């Protein structure tokens, strides 16, 4: 038996999310007394694969093929299912990100495995197999029993700490190939925003709402984000109005994020907004209205005008930087 984890790579490199996944799988494997086995798909350098051992992987199975550079839901799921059967996996762990959402449901059908998605903690118990997951967009949690011999977990990003527990690792090049008959998706064009910190990867996020008053007032907010190495985000009306790009919109109908620190500036804290950010470790609210609901979700708050407060914060951060 084994816990199988798919850590995904980005242009041949792993990142923090991959290490969170392997750390999590390795701890679940400890609970079950099983091995943690990684399945990697696509061309990845040996050095990159070796890094995964730092987080407790016992074995790495690498499927390398340059035809696998773009995600094809059906073909990828087929290969992971094949590995899962080969290693007799009792648990399969993926991320609850775009890729995980594409693959986990297909694996569930292929392996007749119950699934719990958006899990943030280690299983509550292993017999019966119960995990805790977010429901109602963060307004509650559910303890879900997965009743099948194989279980699939998708892990919420930034919810599980990276844990170093280096092990000697076996790297095995697999001869599994994608089923060409299943590869039906043709990629016509790729557009990437270069140099921007991905919202889902950012440890700190600075976000503005309608209280920013105008698209011309974003200068100090962006400057603060740069000083903090933070991502920038916004509420839905702000992206709807075209004040900020759509990929910055957080909330129920936008991105769901869980940074360590979230600044909500001129954001009222509507329940649909909170749905996307309530898992943040710390929330800071800056708002002119002392009764704005965002203060109920926040640990730190300033009742004040963003246009006056932001320059003060920027000034202070610069002062710290110059020391």
């Amino acid at each position: 038996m084994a816990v199988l984890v798919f850590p995904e790579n980005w242009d041949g490199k792993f990142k923090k999310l991959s290490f969170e996944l392997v750390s999590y799988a390795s701890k679940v494997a400890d609970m079950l007394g099983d091995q943690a086995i990684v399945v990697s798909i696509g061309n990845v350098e040996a050095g990159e694969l070796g890094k995964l051992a730092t987080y407790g992987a016992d074995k790495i199975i690498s499927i390398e093929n340059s035809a696998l550079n773009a995600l094809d839901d059906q073909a990828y799921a087929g290969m992971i299912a094949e590995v899962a059967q080969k290693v007799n996996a009792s648990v399969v762990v993926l991320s609850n990100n775009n890729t995980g959402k594409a693959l986990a449901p297909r694996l569930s059908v292929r392996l007749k495995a119950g699934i719990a998605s958006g899990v943030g903690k280690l299983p509550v118990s292993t017999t019966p197999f119960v995990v805790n997951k977010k429901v109602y967009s963060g307004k509650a949690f559910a303890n879900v029993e997965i009743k099948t011999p194989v279980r699939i977990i998708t892990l919420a990003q930034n919810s599980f700490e990276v844990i170093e527990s280096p092990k000697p690792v076996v790297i095995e090049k697999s001869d599994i190939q994608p089923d060409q008959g299943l590869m039906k998706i043709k990629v016509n064009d790729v557009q990437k925003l270069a140099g921007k910190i991905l919202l889902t990867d950012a440890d700190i996020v600075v976000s503005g709402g309608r209280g920013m008053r105008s698209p011309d007032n974003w200068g100090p907010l962006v400057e603060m984000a740069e000083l903090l190495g933070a991502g920038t985000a916004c509420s839905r009306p702000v992206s709807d109005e075209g004040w900020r790009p759509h990929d910055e919109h957080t909330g129920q109908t936008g991105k769901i994020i869980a940074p360590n620190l979230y600044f909500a500036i001129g954001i009222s804290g509507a329940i649909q907004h909170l749905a996307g950010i309530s898992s943040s470790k710390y929330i800071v609210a800056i708002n002119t209205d002392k009764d704005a609901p965002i203060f109920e979700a926040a640990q730190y708050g300033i009742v004040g005008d963003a246009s006056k407060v932001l320059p003060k914060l920027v000034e202070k951060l610069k002062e710290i930087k110059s020391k």
Partner: protein
Amino acid sequence: MKILVCISNVPDTTTKVKFVDELKKLDVNGIQWVINPWDELALTRALELKDDAANGIQSVTVAHVGLSTSEPTIRKALAIGADDAIRVNTESGDAYSVAAQLAEVLKNENFDIILCGIESSDHNGSTVGGMLAEFLRVPSVTCVSSLKFENGQPVVSREIDGGKEGLSLPVPFVAIVQKGIAKEPRIAAMRGIMSARTKPIKVYEPQAIDNLTEVVNYEMPKPRAACKYVDAENAGQLIDLLQNEARVF
């Protein structure tokens, strides 16, 4: 071409959820049920595509797994503009059973494009669409933010980390949609509401399919510590607190 939109029936997003029966069940008292927001946008997009005759869309159907108590939600979808509906008459169980019930019915139909939402706002599964595609053995694309027709063929774009990918794939396929698929949900006009009453809802009896998962109980989130206020005049103090107390940078 025929489009199907799978819709789930969820509590209005502003609902303050409560649980009863030793935290085993949702307290449905006073809950307003609505079409899952993503599904409403998917339906809107399907209708926009049908409006343009050049796309050659014959019909837009909605499908739902649920008891007759969710018929108001189906009628609302018909009022917005769907031509007809399919309902599988069983309590909506876990994602696997919902997808399996849908697949049983759909394998005898010939929809070209099946649209699902990226997640239901109740159990936040993000799983029914992908499962349905696998049961039907058709390709799928997840995180779809645009669906249009070029030279009579559907093209989609999906969100990837830090960007977008434009894709084409043969029908039939499942597109699992998210932000961007449509701007604002289409609202039912008076004429739509009147005609919805007579539009057909085909009801299918369920297959014997087991749930693979079960909710043991629910928990409410732990209350957060009360907010600590910093005076706006001394805003810089906030940075000190974040650095030395919260230690976030």
